[in-house]
């Protein structure tokens, strides 16, 4: 049933109680009564849960029995349930766009405290919708085909898991990683809580799968530099930075490394956080995927020192190039390699760009960077890792094994001065590290915690188990770390804290301090957010569309979140979320098309004067000038419906569907109309 022209408007109005969420602050009956007095309103009801089946059926029945041709529901935010009620409107036999939603929960009952005022506000907002709907036009949802390929940004455990999931299902995946190898933070860990299995043992098979999967194109040492288009059809430019080794020719034999003119590794090794050393040509780490060497132009003798302004390096030809000789016929080394930009088209994107650990220089009272025996937890992971710089021997920078170790929880977490959030994993990894220290040494271990937070499956059990292993658990925030005045030679430190259970100030002498640094958004998250048109929470994590109902979706259709880029989480949760993101991407891809909200704009062909004012305004170059008719035209496929051109057309000759001038003016009129006293 479509409304014909001139058919009188017949509106059905429904105000929802939302249990008590709305009804406790808004007198829904009064609202319904008031709306019943407004022009064109045929039915005005209130109901406990409009979004429930009976609520939706009520709308459908009324449409049929009362011959409604417009529907207005006052309930929660349209961002939540507009879709539901459009569906009900359609099921009742009307065009779904004859529906309008009024937000009286998020924008009213939940934020106001005066029932009378909140009720009057609900009336005003309802009136705006009642005045708006008569102007609504029937519209059609456009279906745009979706490109089945997917881009995954970041190849830590979340990105890896999402990539394998998608690729196993036959989707073509492009996996882009900033670092020369995939693996992310997990590759750096020694063992993982609560199972205490070796991180690399579980990760490396997955990494290998990624490296060899026919459906995965792996681009490491690469960054996304440009994103255009929209869901179903993103055009992405990826910059592949030069590693000075031709990927296709390198076999990973590492003979170049062995034969480098530097006989000994000399330069701090990033993977081991500078605790180990590497040569100018190196393999990121033993199990790196892809297993391809890389040359660091900052230190390689065959390059001039320092970057050119464009970021490239100049070849100096100063070195004997023994590496090239060693590589021989493989000819994989290319000192002239340049960055290359690759353009790909994908339908969906999964962001798995991870986190960074808190930089403890920001908490100077813990002495990180001042006292050599203060470590971050991540550094300790490398130190006790069998493939780490000390081959798994827990020794300090001075080569000695610590006798007493303090682990300081919540560094850069739950702290007004740094980050307010709980990083969720620190208590557990601190317990794990304590366990590992006890396993490797006879040291006394002190864990200083604020609260012991161990939520999640098997986590409390893990805590109970390792807590019995003989570590000291001290409840109290560490205030200070300073050298032991009585023992300046050995580098011994005093950890000062208040034990809040006994109300005593403790000063504990230790050899080693481990800072359990929290998780933070990556510094480049801000740039990525702009690039991908995402939102961030005030802390800087990527914002999910809805914390409960759309936790891996974003406000940009077709882009999903996995892992710690959305907030701190542990490995199981990251993997679960990666699976969820993959599933969301699937459901889009396998549908075959994306539905586009028909809020596009169009130029009134007769009325446009061809003044061209609108043409430069469109961010998507959807507007062009037709040289034949001398008028502007909007390419509907390109228009995304911002309405900027509509507001700017000086002769009012552009119309935006769903947001027509007349519709907005009626809303303005409606919210300001006098209310009954």
């Amino acid at each position, binding site marked *: 049933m479509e409304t014909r022209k001139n058919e009188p408007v017949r509106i059905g109005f429904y105000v929802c109680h939302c249990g008590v969420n709305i009804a406790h602050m808004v007198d829904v009956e009064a609202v319904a009564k008031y709306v019943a007095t407004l022009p064109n309103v045929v039915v005005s009801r209130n109901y406990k849960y409009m979004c429930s089946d009976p609520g939706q059926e009520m709308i459908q029945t009324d449409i049929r029995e009362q011959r409604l041709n417009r529907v207005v529901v006052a309930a929660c935010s349209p961002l939540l349930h507009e879709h539901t009620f459009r569906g009900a409107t359609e099921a009742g036999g009307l065009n779904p766009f004859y529906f309008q939603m009024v937000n009286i929960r998020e924008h009213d009952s939940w934020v106001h405290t005066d029932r009378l005022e909140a009720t009057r506000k609900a009336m005003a907002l309802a009136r705006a919708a009642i005045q708006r709907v008569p102007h609504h036009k029937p519209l059609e949802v456009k279906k745009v085909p979706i490109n089945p390929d997917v881009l995954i940004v970041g190849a830590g455990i979340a990105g890896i898991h999402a990539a394998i999931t998608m690729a196993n299902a036959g989707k073509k995946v492009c996996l882009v990683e900033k670092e020369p190898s995939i693996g992310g933070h997990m590759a750096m860990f020694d063992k993982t809580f609560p199972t205490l299995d070796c991180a690399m043992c579980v990760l490396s098979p997955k990494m290998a799968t990624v490296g060899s999967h026919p459906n995965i194109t792996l681009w490491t040492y690469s960054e996304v530099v440009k994103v255009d288009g929209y869901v179903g059809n993103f055009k992405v430019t990826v910059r592949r930075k030069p590693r000075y080794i031709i990927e296709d020719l390198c076999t990973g034999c590492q003979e170049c490394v062995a034969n480098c003119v530097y006989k000994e590794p000399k330069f701090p090794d990033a993977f081991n956080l500078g605790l180990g050393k590497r040569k100018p040509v190196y393999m990121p780490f033993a199990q790196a995927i892809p297993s391809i060497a890389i040359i660091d132009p900052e230190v390689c003798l065959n390059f001039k020192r320092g970057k050119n302004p464009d970021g490239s390096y100049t070849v100096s030809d100063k070195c004997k190039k023994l590496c090239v000789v060693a590589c021989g016929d493989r000819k994989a080394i290319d000192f002239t390699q340049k960055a290359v930009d690759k353009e790909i088209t994908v339908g969906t994107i999964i962001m798995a760009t991870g986190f960074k650990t808190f930089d403890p220089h920001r908490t100077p009272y813990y002495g990180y960077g001042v006292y050599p025996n203060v470590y971050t937890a991540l550094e300790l992971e490398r130190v006790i890792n069998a493939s780490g710089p000390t081959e798994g021997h827990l020794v300090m920078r001075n080569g000695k094994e610590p006798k007493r170790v303090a682990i300081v929880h919540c560094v850069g977490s739950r702290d007004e001065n740094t980050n307010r959030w709980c990083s969720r994993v620190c208590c557990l990894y601190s317990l794990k590290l304590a366990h590992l220290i006890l396993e490797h040494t006879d040291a006394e271990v002190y864990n200083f915690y604020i609260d012991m937070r161990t939520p999640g499956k098997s986590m409390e059990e893990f805590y109970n188990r390792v807590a019995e292993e003989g570590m000291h658990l001290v409840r109290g925030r560490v205030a200070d770390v300073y050298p032991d005045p009585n023992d300046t030679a050995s580098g011994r430190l005093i950890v000062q804290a208040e034990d809040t259970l006994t109300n005593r100030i403790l000063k504990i002498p230790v050899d080693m301090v481990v800072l359990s640094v929290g998780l933070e958004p990556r510094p480049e998250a801000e740039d990525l957010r702009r690039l991908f048109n995402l939102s961030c929470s005030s802390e800087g994590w990527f914002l999910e569309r809805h914390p409960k109902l759309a936790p891996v979706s974003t406000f940009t259709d077709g882009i999903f979140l996995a892992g710690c880029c959305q907030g701190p989480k542990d490995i199981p949760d990251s993997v679960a979320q990666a699976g969820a993101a993959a599933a969301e991407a699937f459901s889009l891809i396998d549908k075959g098309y994306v539905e586009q909200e028909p809020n596009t704009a169009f130029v009134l062909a007769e009325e446009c004067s061809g003044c*061209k004012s609108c043409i430069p305004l469109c961010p998507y170059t959807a507007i062009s000038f037709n040289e034949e008719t001398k008028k502007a035209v909007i390419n509907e496929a390109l228009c995304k419906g911002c309405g900027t051109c509509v507001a700017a057309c000086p002769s009012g000759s552009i119309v935006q569907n769903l947001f027509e001038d007349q519709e907005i003016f009626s809303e303005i009129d409606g919210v300001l109309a006098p209310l009954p006293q």
Partner: protein
Amino acid sequence: MPLALITPNLKPLKPLMFKPKVAFYWCASCGGCEETVVDLAEDILGVVEKVDIVLWPVAMDFKYKDVEAMPDKSILATLLNGAIRSTEQEEMARLLRRKSQYMIAYGACAHLGGIPGLANQFTREHILKFNYEDGPAMANEKKTRPQLVTEENGRTPRLPALTNVVRSLDQVVEVDYYVPGCPPTPKITRAAVTALLENRLPPKGSVIAPDIALCDECPRKATKPANISFREFKRPHQALMDPQKCFLAQGVVCMGPSTLSGCEAACISGGMPCTGCFGPTSRVRDQGLKIMSSLCSNLEPKDEQGISAVLQGIPDPIGTFYRYGLARSLLRRKVNLPTD
């Protein structure tokens, strides 16, 4: 859009049984509109022969009483020019409305308030004081002001009072049609009169002009670039103007994009940008705001300072964007002015 589009029911002219009565009247206007009517009368004497002019103060001798004595609706059409800003004008407007079948707002002042409408930025007192006391050309030492009522030789002549607010005609009485322009061009006037006499009238409330902006018929249209981006605004006297090129392309504010066409771009052809006298299209409620929106959207700078620097090039936005339309704009008048 050709005029024929808004007068679709072309019926052949039937011979007139008797001459329809027509009235011309002027209110707050400069006289330019009257001039066009005179021009027109010479131009289409044939038409004038077909009508019986019952009131035309500028050319013929009729009195208020004569009109008052006429039966209601006995005049086919009144073409009234000028804004309404005195009690006399208002009274005449009401009287003529009552006597006329069609009330036609003739010219920008009746249509939109026109130049006199700019007085809506000031109080009545301010205007009187300036005009009778402070004005630079004023030699009125005693600061005498016109008195509404005076005694003279036993008579008490009364003067009409200036109203606080300048109004377009339709803010005072119901208007059937608008003939736009300052003044309306002969072509537009002819179209209106012909439509009236031939009974091919568009829907009530129409403006007798194509409902499309001026760029459509502008001779410089082709020279407007599709990527305009304003770095500065100049006024026409501040630069040497290219006589072929779109004014906006030269950084000069032109109201053409937000102004009805039908004038055949007379000002542009005369080397001046459009100042908006034909008023907005039917799709726009406030001509000044709409041109402002379009110009500002296309500024080059993105930062507050840069933006405001470019906008300094428009020192008087009200006078620029509401040259003719202030009285009929959304706010009508400076809202904090008192009335007395």
